[in-house]
């Protein structure tokens, strides 16, 4: 039996406002699964022609799948959100690329014909589940020198990247970080970011109920001088600071994907068309390099070159990791095609949720930039991996940019 591969489209993507992890953070007393439910409810509300019983699968990513991030979130969050019992669900993990992997896994199922419409999602409540909670690395990693212990501390891998590419200085990292803050502030002022936020009811035993409507992490007033004064927690006299990295954050994202035919049948919006995707591995000690080979693979599969890409959404786990990517592909640090609405350094990076935030941002750019045909979302992944998804702009008007 042979069958055609079906086109996969991104219908819509939303996220909760992101919070700072910790006892005083926005979501300090809010459950991770409730964040996912808030995103699901908003997603369905925004797409009233999508009857929930048409959802063929729900995949929710989380890095630490215990407690309120355990119990097969794809199923439990679906039930909590009021999806019909007939809608199945699963959980996914590829650390920071969890939501990206949820999207590509399900997209593969759509292309194959197993699904018509799916919900992909990611969540990380790093306040309730600090990085490394409950991990139990095999002693062979160290004994057989399979992975350097430093590779488990992401900040140290970022310092390693500065070592490998010495021309990527702290100053360049801080300048990039400042730009991320400034672009985020502008995107807020322009209403780009708030448009895709799902408000979340938050309760605090001491303060009562509240509502999260905006991101907590951005520092719009920061300056190069302020960034330069920050400590380097991962290495004495190092280069990686809290200012030129993403923080520890809480938040959830969710997206609807569909086959192009189903999107038309159900009169769903089409915000991006999936072109190709790829994942690749690198040395775990310099995990920030991951997006380079994954992008090369994805471009090759799509028959495209880097010159064909008009918009880049690169996750800013660390400024140096973005700079390494730009450096490799010969893009300048302030290339306007890169992260036009800012990125994780400003808005936050709740690990497994970020992949879908990148797609939501790219979709916003596609709407505004009909002259762009292709864009990509890419991110580095713990233990030395990268992931890249290439998308085509459905609003592309055929002009050459």
């Amino acid at each position, binding site marked *: 039996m042979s069958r055609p591969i079906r086109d996969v489209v991104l219908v819509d993507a939303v996220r909760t406002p992101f919070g700072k992890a910790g006892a005083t953070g926005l979501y300090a007393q809010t459950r991770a699964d409730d964040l996912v439910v808030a995103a699901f409810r908003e997603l369905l509300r925004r797409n009233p022609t999508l009857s929930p019983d048409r959802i063929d699968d729900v995949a929710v990513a989380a890095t630490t799948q215990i407690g309120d991030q355990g119990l097969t979130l794809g199923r439990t969050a679906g039930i909590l959100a009021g999806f019909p019992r007939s809608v199945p669900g699963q959980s996914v993990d590829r650390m920071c690329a969890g939501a990206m992997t949820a999207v590509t896994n399900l997209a593969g199922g759509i292309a194959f014909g197993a699904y018509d419409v799916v919900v992909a999602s990611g969540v990380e409540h790093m306040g309730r589940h600090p990085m490394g909670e409950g991990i139990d690395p095999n002693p062979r990693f160290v004994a057989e020198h399979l992975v350097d212990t430093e590779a488990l501390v992401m900040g140290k891998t970022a310092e390693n990247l500065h070592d490998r590419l010495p021309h990527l200085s702290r100053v360049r990292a801080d300048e990039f970080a400042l730009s991320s803050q400034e672009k985020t502030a502008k995107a807020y002022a322009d209403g780009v970011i708030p448009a895709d936020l799902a*408000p979340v009811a938050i309760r605090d035993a*001491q*303060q*009562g*109920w509240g509502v999260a409507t*905006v991101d907590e992490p951005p520092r719009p007033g920061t300056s190069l001088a302020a960034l330069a004064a920050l400590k380097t927690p991962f290495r004495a006299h190092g280069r990686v600071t809290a200012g030129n990295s993403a923080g520890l954050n809480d938040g959830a994202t969710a997206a609807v994907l569909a086959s192009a035919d189903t999107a038309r049948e159900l009169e769903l919006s089409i915000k991006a068309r999936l072109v190709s995707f790829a994942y690749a591995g690198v040395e775990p000690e310099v995990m920030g390099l991951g997006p380079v080979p994954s992008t090369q693979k994805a471009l090759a599969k799509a028959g495209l070159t880097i010159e064909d890409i008009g918009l880049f959404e690169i996750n800013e786990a660390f400024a140096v990791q973005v700079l390494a990517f730009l450096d490799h592909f010969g893009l300048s640090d302030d290339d306007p095609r890169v992260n036009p609405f800012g990125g994780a350094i400003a808005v936050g990076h709740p690990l497994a949720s970020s992949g879908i935030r990148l797609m939501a941002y790219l979709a916003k750019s596609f709407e505004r930039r009909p002259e762009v045909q292709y864009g990509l979302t890419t991110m580095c992944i713990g233990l030395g991996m990268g992931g890249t998804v290439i998308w085509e702009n459905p609003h592309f008007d055929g002009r050459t940019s």
Partner: protein
Amino acid sequence: MSTGTETASTITDSTIAAAPDEVVTQSLLRIVALPGTGARAALITLDNGHDHTKPNTLGIAGLASLDSAIDAAETAAKAGQIVALAITGKPFVFAVGADLTGVPRLHDLEQARQLSAMGHRVFRRLGELPVPTFALLNGATLGGGLEIALHCTYRTVSSGAGLIAFPEVALGLVPGWGGAYLLPRLIGAKNAIKVIVENPLSQNRMLNPKQAATLGIADAMFEPADFLVQSLRWAAAVVAGEVTPSRPLVDTGAEWDDAITEGRELVSAALHGSAPAAERALDLIDQARNRTPDAGFAAEDDVLAELIMSDEFRASLYAFDLVQRRAKRPVGAPNPALARPITKVGIVGAGLMASQLALLFAQRLEVPVVMTDLNQERVDTGVGYVRNEIDTLQAKGKFSNDKANRLRALVSGTTTKADFADADLVIEAVFEKLELKREIFAELETHISATCLLLTNTSSLSVTEMSRGLAHPERVVGFHFFNPVAKMPLLEIASTELTDEVALATAFAVGKALKKSCVLVHDAPAFVVNRILIRFLGEVIAAFDEGTPFDIVEHALDPLGLPISPFLLLQLVGPGVALHVSETMHLAFPDRYLVSPNQQRIVDAGITRLLTWDGAVPRLTDEVTGLLVVGNSASTAEQLRQRALDAMAQEARLMLDDGVVAEPQDIDLCMMLGAGWPFHLGGITPYLDRTGTSERVTGRRFLAPGVASLPTAPAA
């Protein structure tokens, strides 16, 4: 801001102090963004700091906290910082009403009025702020909680909110913090009477969220998953003028009059003037249409103060506490850890009572239940009855199909008691004949294990006699259910001198698993409920036999507000059964329990139906009247009532002196849960105390002043 440190000291218009043990519901105030707009609102969360098992209530310190939060909101509103005030509850609970723990201490009318007035003063501010106010009913909303909501400009309700009601009238109060004034003006007199009067008098029926929305109590309903966010979005749309909630049109003319008339008829038929709260509520509703808020709230203060200072209300509070607390923790029950597990139940008998028991045990214990009787035909009838009942309940949607299959498979029948060999509990439900029951127990002992619990469902025979001569009399316990078994909440558990702790603990564990309220009774003729009822009926019937006219007999007890009249009770129990129990009781206590010759004649004639109705008015059937031989010594209603009350006081005192139950509280609990006697009587002993009956007849009260009545002297 938190108002946690504020106390009653901030109240300037009141001299009443907060109860030292008040669990204070704080009003936590937070300024929030209204989603989707640039506007901000004040959001108050009612939260007593406990989880939903201890719901929010409103005492004096709680009112003060709300007052302070409203102060802050008012300041913000006047400064233009907020466009709305919203108020909601902690998870699963909005607020379930006034904190009544301090009420027994209130000892004069002025204090009671101050408590009423303080509620009004604080709550009405919610309707008088310069910005619109929204009550977001996220969970249980009762009494004062619902009044908070009614003072607000708008209300949303969560479809998962659980119960919404004004239960005040059931407790002998009125919704006197604005409810009786505001609700009829919002939804009309007819629906307001349903909520405020009719529902509390109908086993305290409550509204679900959909009903609250349909009645117009809530303007909008949202699902629980994102109730707060959607409510705030809706509030933002209302503030922006994008949404205008539609409200019921209220006719304050003829419709209002008719509703009041109907309400008064209903109350009179149910209570015969025995408890004032329902009538006062109707007075307030009647007048609400023409009153200003000031006048309406002042009238509520007067009524509430009067009712708080009434014995009916104090007895109701006592009764409520018994039903809520004592019924759940039976006094005198052994350590539950001693109980043996029950994995299989045997039932001797397959008649109607046995079949009802089989269904109950299967449904609640979810273990195999085997019914036995003399022949296969009887067994099949009994098992068939149970399966039919399961079918009926399944058709009504009470169980899923899987559950129904499970239950049907659990119930089986046999003609050999050898099938009880592995049962952990066997209950007999055969005809009320001591010899028969003794034989059955003796036969059972040849089949069952030495530890199998043996229960008898007798209503009047001696459990002690039944266990005499058995190899293991220590495992025999009386288990007296009330008809209909599925509905009546009471289970009298009777122990004998020989019953051991393990058997008794197991009996209580089973009773709890059956979801019954258990009361420990020491084996004595007819236990508690029937002993009182039969004594009381005996006196009533004797007065009738002496020549007191039917109408006087039928209505002499009306001032008590009992659920049914004496003759109707006799008909429902069945003249034959009642006669049989009277005879048993007469044997036990020949001086006090009489056997009526007229009753004997009725039973001999095979008559089971005593009454016929001319419209709503009952009278004895001609067939019955033709049989009667009555004397010519008529009692007045007053004389008959006193005679009946005197008899009950005597019987209750004897039961306490003989140690049948531990305390008067147990008698009262039994009368409320087993006979449906009303809260305003406090069961029965508070009423016997407040009418002076107990002191006159027995020389002493049952309960100290203040326990279920107004205190005699100011509390410290």
